[in-house]
């Protein structure tokens, strides 16, 4: 009986049994980190990406099952789940839905402080010509309510907005009336240094449901150095204002923000401790903004991004220790990024969105009626650069704002999916485009990622957070999850501290 070989096809490479789904990757801590279009991630052994691309991955391995479960690949048994991946992607972009939600009203440029890092060219406290007029306020309110968003936030800024309290009193009832007519929810926030707040003002805010956001840069020596005012008592005024505000508005209606100057860099723990001492449960370790007046004083207040990142890591380490010791306080930037990394959702934080939140998610109505794409855009205008002035409430409609040349140029550079350096980045789903920042710092809306402070900051912070995730320390992750979910620290965490 003759013996024959199997046909040649029998020895051909087997037909691939799986197909790749789109993902990006980077190398981190000796492993490969894979991130899919919906921001889901997986740490895998080195060489996995190579095995995926040449289709040599063992389909019986646990790694294969993990990759399939996280939708980095699919096969015949998992293909129907692709609809779910599309839904996850849509969820990750839900910040795009509804139109502009945050509307910042610059009711005055007047201020009695003279902070070196201030982004605004403040005017003296008595110059009323830098206040928003009733006619301008009416037009700005109408434009805000033209947004399709079912819920909008009206934020008063300055200068020091309480110096134009009469303008605030003019705007609030009119905004509320129009919101009722348009069936929109309306939140109102005042960003104030609280130096000139009175009980009458606070009682008005209480009755109108207005929340207060103030500045607290750290302990007295640092706050007063950063925020000079007549009497050198900015800190004392802020603390007194915080206490009075809490007494009248309630603890939950008063928030504080800090700005990191060069003087702050050696005092991360002291700044955190000040927030704990003042019973705040969140702190935002923010770098100084490279805009407006801060540019003029950068030789005194500025620093390299590397130094800020050291400050951030020291501060975060101390915040985690404070949490382990039983006091819950969240670092806001960490909270924002971890929400993007560990949950299906994006966040409403306009500075970390793609498409960029500028104009799309926030509009700024200056005292003179000019409309800007963001607070930073307005700050550039204070330096006589009106690139991001979208229009004026007296001349434009919402449609003309969004279809004018300034807006269209901005939108072209607003998607990190289409930016050099970002398009291949594994962290794209968590990060953002910021055309205004790059224009301000590099003279180009698109920006050059290798020399970008924005990229350096986010790349390093995201890597740092992924190190926590990869390390998976039980106590640390429990604390971080409590920040994401807004739930209290469990007793178990306190006991483990």
């Amino acid at each position, binding site marked *: 009986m003759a013996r024959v070989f199997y046909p040649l096809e029998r020895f051909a490479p087997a037909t691939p049994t799986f197909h790749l789904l789109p993902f990006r990757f980077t190398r981190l801590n000796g492993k490969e980190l894979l991130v899919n279009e919906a921001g889901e991630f997986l740490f895998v052994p080195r060489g996995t990406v190579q095995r995926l691309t040449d289709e040599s991955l063992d389909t019986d391995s646990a790694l294969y099952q993990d990759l399939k479960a996280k939708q980095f690949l699919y096969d015949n048994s998992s*293909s129907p789940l692709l609809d779910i991946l599309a839904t996850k992607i849509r969820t990750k*972009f839900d910040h795009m839905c509804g139109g502009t939600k945050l509307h910042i009203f610059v009711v005055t440029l007047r201020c009695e402080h003279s902070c070196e890092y201030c982004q605004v060219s403040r005017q003296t406290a008595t110059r009323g010509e830098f206040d928003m007029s009733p006619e301008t306020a009416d037009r700005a309110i109408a434009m805000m309510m033209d947004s399709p968003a079912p819920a909008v936030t009206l934020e008063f800024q300055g200068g020091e907005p309480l110096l134009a309290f009469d303008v605030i009193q003019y705007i609030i009832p009119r905004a509320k009336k129009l919101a009722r007519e348009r069936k929109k929810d309306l939140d109102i926030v005042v960003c104030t240094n609280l130096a000139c707040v009175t009980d009458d003002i606070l009682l008005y805010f209480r009755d109108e449901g207005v929340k207060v956001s103030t500045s607290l840069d750290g302990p007295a020596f640092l706050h007063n150095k950063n925020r000079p005012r007549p009497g050198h008592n900015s800190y004392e005024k802020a603390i007194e204002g915080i206490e009075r505000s809490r007494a009248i508005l309630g603890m939950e209606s008063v928030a504080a923000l800090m700005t990191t100057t060069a003087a702050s860099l050696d005092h991360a723990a002291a700044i955190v401790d000040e927030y704990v001492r003042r019973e705040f449960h969140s702190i935002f370790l923010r770098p100084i903004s490279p805009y407006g007046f801060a540019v003029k004083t950068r030789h005194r207040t500025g620093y390299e991004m590397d130094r800020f990142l050291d400050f951030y890591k020291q501060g975060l380490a101390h915040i985690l220790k404070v949490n382990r010791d039983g006091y819950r306080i969240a670092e806001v930037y960490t909270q924002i990024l971890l929400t993007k990394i560990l949950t299906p959702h994006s966040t409403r934080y306009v500075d970390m969105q793609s498409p960029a939140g500028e104009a799309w998610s926030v509009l700024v109505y200056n005292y003179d009626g000019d409309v800007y794409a963001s607070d930073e855009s307005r700050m550039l205008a204070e330096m006589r650069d009106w690139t991001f002035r979208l229009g004026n409430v007296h001349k434009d409609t919402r449609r003309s704002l969004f279809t004018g040349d300034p807006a269209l140029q901005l939108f072209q550079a607003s998607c990190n999916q289409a930016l050099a350096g970002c398009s291949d980045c594994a962290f794209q789903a968590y990060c953002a485009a910021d055309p205004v920042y790059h224009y301000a710092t590099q003279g180009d809306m698109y920006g*050059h990622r290798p020399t970008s402070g924005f990229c350096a900051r986010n790349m390093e912070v995201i890597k740092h957070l992924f190190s926590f995730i990869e390390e998976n320390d039980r106590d640390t992750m429990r604390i971080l999850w409590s920040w994401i979910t807004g739930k209290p620290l469990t007793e178990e965490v306190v006991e483990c501290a």
Partner: protein
Amino acid sequence: MDESGSISTPDANRIALEIDRGLVSAEALLKASYWFSRDFVCEIRNRNDQIAEVVLRPRNSASVVDAASIQDSFITSAMDFALREKIDGKTSGVRDLLLAKAFSEAGVLEDEPQGIFGDAVEEAKPESMFKILGTPRF
């Protein structure tokens, strides 16, 4: 040294690499060079059909301190971009489909997507995965 590249003549003020063009495309080299452009002026030349030469010159006046480490980093980066090209080649179609589907159902597309959106095999099934339902009209 990775099989995709080799080092040519040592020089205190420049790093020269020879890259196999069959393994690393010009686009991957350009993308790797982009990330090295903070610290180096990068020049890419095709020496012949098989070999591309990459020359890195430090932007500051200091000479190259750790040439071997920089060469390794560049080649690793270039090879990673070559891998990303392969991934993109295998997944760009399904990425377009996923994004079109995600945003079509979200109702944010003002215009009907151009071209054919769908997997012919899948669409033939009763429970098709990729069925663009048309732009919602409000």
